[in-house]
């Protein structure tokens, strides 16, 4: 089994303010999808990033506000999974809720730390 990282990207949309019900429905979608991967014993770990308060550090101590001005897409989080191949990892990514709201999933192979 190889480890893969799924990186979730979506268009930056500051005007989208979900209602608590929408938030709850979204959490359920994500949890059901990740629960399904975990039920196959293929879940490794996940990171969810806040869309607020991002800073970018550039050379010479230059600190800039968020990536949103320069980039159209922002990273929302990541999920690490175990899969036997890239094809299988892509298959696992198929149910990802971000695809339903126009986002995308980048799947990358993780290089083991001890190699």
């Amino acid at each position, binding site marked *: 089994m190889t480890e893969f990282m799924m990186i979730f990207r979506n268009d930056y949309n500051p005007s989208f303010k979900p209602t608590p019900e929408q938030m709850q429905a979204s959490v*359920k979608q994500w*949890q*059901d999808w*990740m*629960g*399904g991967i*975990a*039920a*196959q*014993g293929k*879940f490794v770990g*996940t990171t969810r990033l806040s869309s607020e308060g991002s800073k970018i550090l550039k050379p010479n101590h230059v600190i800039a506000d968020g990536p949103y001005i320069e980039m159209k897409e922002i990273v929302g989080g990541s999920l690490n999974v175990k899969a036997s191949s890239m094809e299988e990892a892509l298959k696992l990514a198929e149910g990802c809720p971000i695809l339903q709201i126009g986002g995308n999933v980048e799947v990358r192979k993780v290089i083991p730390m001890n190699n």
Partner: protein
Amino acid sequence: MNNKELIPQLFKTEYRKIISVLCKLFGIVHIEIAEDIVNDTFLLATETWDLNGIPQNPSAWLYTVAKNKTKDYFKRQQTFSQKIVADLKQQHALSEEPEPDLSAQNISDSQLQMMFAICHPSIPAEAQIGLALRILCGFGIDEIAEAFLTNKETINKRLFRAKEKLRAENIKIELPDESEIKKRLEAVLTTLYLLFNEGYHSNTSQNYLRKELCLEAMRLNYFLIENENTNQPNVNALMALMCFHASRLDARTTETGEPVLYEAQNKNSWNEELIEKGNYFLIQSAKGSVISKYHLEASIAYWHSTKIDNPDRWENILQLYNQLLQIEYSPITALNRTYALSKVSGNQKALQEALKLNLEENHFYHSLLGHLYSSNDKPKAIFHFKKALSMAKSAGDKTTLNNHLEKLK
């Protein structure tokens, strides 16, 4: 109460106390001496109480005899006196032979410390449970063998190796430092969890033994709650889990030991008092910021203990299983999660996910598939129930599967 009832009962409650105190006094290296002394004490009780009747305070009688036997032992053993007593005298700054301190405080401290010694990470899990049953729960070798569905010889060997390991590692009978206690507590909780499950899922036909194992695990867990250093959120969460499960102990088997599935259980025979205790410990566990697997499992058990069929119930259970699987995968959790999914999103959706589980070797997997196919593909349902039947080991599981097959005919 006569001797024949009283002595086994005292063995269960007093054996662990005396042995913990003696082990603490001698050091774990000499655990066998401690065992001999306690065994001799109980033997003498059996002999003399038969002749002279039961003393007024049987526990105090046992403590006095154990104390005297210990002092005699120190006197008799020349080599022992030279080697150990010299050490002990130095350690305890004593001029006289040391004697066991069987005060209530020292008994309770020693038992708690003994738990940490037995659940040391260097001892294999199976041996830990065996040792815990023998030393902390006063179980007979034959009872342990029955609980593990094996023979006495295997258990004796396992215990022997475990004690060797205790000696070799020179494990101290003490509470770990504050910095280490959380990590070591994990190992203690794992053992208690396994001990409880051993009882809860045991294949033994002895109903009393199953119950006894569960209650012992709860009693040991309660020691941890009573001590402020070990009274942590995850300890309370495990206690809540055990209470909720234990509330259904009577409902989940018939008098002859056959299993009664959750759906078919008489909810009125669930133990209300234990459910309330479960609620209490679950509230106590809601402190700190860490959600342990015990928190999640206790919350699932909480939903299973509610008698009102709340529409949110299965949705909550599904979400708890989703989280639990992200902390720790196990085939049975994966199967339970898929069952919860069928309750929330229907059999078709659950079936799609079930087929990805890759658990062909597990008879519960086929049982789940049988269940999910039952509604619209009878031949497949029968195929999987039969497959499960061919793999099932316990008589109880076989009965359940035969009942399912019967209904499909």
